[in-house]
C-alpha cells in the first residue's frame, strides 16, 4: 500500500517507475533497503541507547556536492534536541568515521553533545580527523579503535583568503575555540595539543600529527582504546551509575 504524499508545488509529471523499486515511507521493505543503501533498516527493537553516526564530511553552511558523504548539522542538531527531550532514550552512543569539515558546524555539534544531560560515549572507528576531534571528546567518555586515526592540524580556510592581519587574527580566534574546547573536554594540555597541531615532518604536505589508536590515548585526547563492546559496556555502566545516584537522591528526599 502506498502512503499518501501531498505536494505543495507543482513538479513535472512523474515517469512511471517499476513497482517495488524504491523505499516507501512508513513501510518495511528490507530487500529494497539492502538494494538502495547496502544495509537493512536499523533494528526496530526498543533500546534505551540511541546511536548517532558522524560520517564523511561535517557539512557547513554550503551544501556539498552529491559525491560527498556528509553529516548535516540541520538534521543532527534537532536530533540531539529530540534525544535530550526523549523519555525513552537514556544514553547516546556516538560512532565517528569522519574526515572533519566545517569548524563552526563541528563545534556546534560538539557543544550540543557536551551539554546533553544524558550519558554519552563516543567511538572513533576509521577516522576522527580534524574537527571530528572535538566531536569525539565532547562525549562523557571516548574510545578509539586500535587502527583508527585522528589528525590534529591547524585551522584552514577554503577559497579566497585576503592577506591582511585581520585574516590571521580571525584564524587564530577560530583555532583558540577548537583548542579550548578540546582541552576542556579531554585530558590533553593546551601546550601538547598546540605542539601536535604545529608539528612538522609528520605529514607529507602539511603540518600536524596523525595519531593512531593508542597514540590518541597516550596524549590524553581519547580515554581508552576499544571497540563497540567496550563503548556499549561503558555507556551502560554510566547509565547505571546515574540511575543509582538519582535513586539515592530520591530516597534521601523522601521522609522516613
Amino acid at each position, binding site marked *: 500500500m*502506498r*502512503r499518501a*504524499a*501531498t*505536494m*505543495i*508545488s507543482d*513538479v*513535472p509529471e*512523474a*515517469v*512511471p*517507475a517499476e513497482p517495488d*523499486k*524504491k*523505499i*516507501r*515511507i*512508513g513501510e518495511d521493505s528490507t530487500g529494497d533497503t539492502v538494494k*538502495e543503501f547496502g544495509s537493512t*533498516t*536499523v533494528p526496530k527493537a526498543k533500546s534505551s541507547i*540511541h546511536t548517532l553516526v558522524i560520517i564523511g564530511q561535517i557539512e557547513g553552511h*554550503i551544501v*556539498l*556536492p*552529491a*559525491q*560527498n558523504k556528509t553529516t*548535516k548539522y*540541520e*538534521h543532527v542538531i*534537532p*536530533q540531539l*534536541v*529530540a*534525544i535530550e*527531550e*526523549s523519555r525513552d532514550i537514556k544514553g547516546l552512543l556516538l560512532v565517528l568515521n569522519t*574526515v*572533519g569539515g566545517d569548524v563552526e558546524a563541528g563545534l556546534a555539534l560538539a557543544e550540543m553533545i557536551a551539554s546533553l544531560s544524558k550519558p554519552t560515549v563516543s567511538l572513533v572507528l576509521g577516522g576522527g*580527523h*580534524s574537527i571530528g576531534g572535538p566531536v569525539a571528546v565532547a562525549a562523557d567518555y571516548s574510545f578509539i579503535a586500535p587502527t583508527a586515526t585522528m*589528525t590534529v592540524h591547524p585551522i*584552514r*580556510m*577554503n*577559497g*579566497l*583568503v585576503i592577506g591582511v592581519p585581520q585574516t590571521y587574527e580571525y584564524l587564530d580566534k577560530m583555532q583558540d575555540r577548537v583548542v579550548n574546547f578540546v582541552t576542556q573536554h579531554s585530558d590533553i594540555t593546551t601546550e601538547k595539543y598546540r605542539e601536535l597541531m604545529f608539528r612538522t615532518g609528520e605529514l607529507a604536505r602539511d603540518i600536524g600529527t596523525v595519531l593512531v589508536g593508542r597514540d590518541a590515548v597516550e596524549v590524553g585526547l581519547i580515554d581508552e582504546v576499544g571497540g563497540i563492546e567496550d563503548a556499549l559496556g561503558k555507556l551502560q555502566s554510566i547509565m547505571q551509575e546515574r540511575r543509582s545516584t538519582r535513586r539515592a537522591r530520591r530516597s534521601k528526599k523522601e521522609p522516613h
Partner: protein
Amino acid sequence: MLYTIYPMDTIFPMDFNQSPLVEYHIQGRLCLGRRGPDGSVRLERLISTVASDYLDPHFSPDTIIDM
C-alpha cells in the same frame, strides 16, 4: 580533507541538470526534496518543529521516497 585557495564550486562543478528543490508534505511533515528522473523524490531536508521527527529514519536526508 580538502584545503585549497580555489572556491569549492570550481573543484566540484555544480550539477546544472539537478532538479530544483521542491517542498513536499510527507505524512504531514514539510520536507524539501528533489525529484529524480524516475519520478522518485530524494529527501534533502526535513523542516519540522517537532524534534522527535528528526529521529525518524524515514526522514533522514537522502532517503528516496516513492511518490
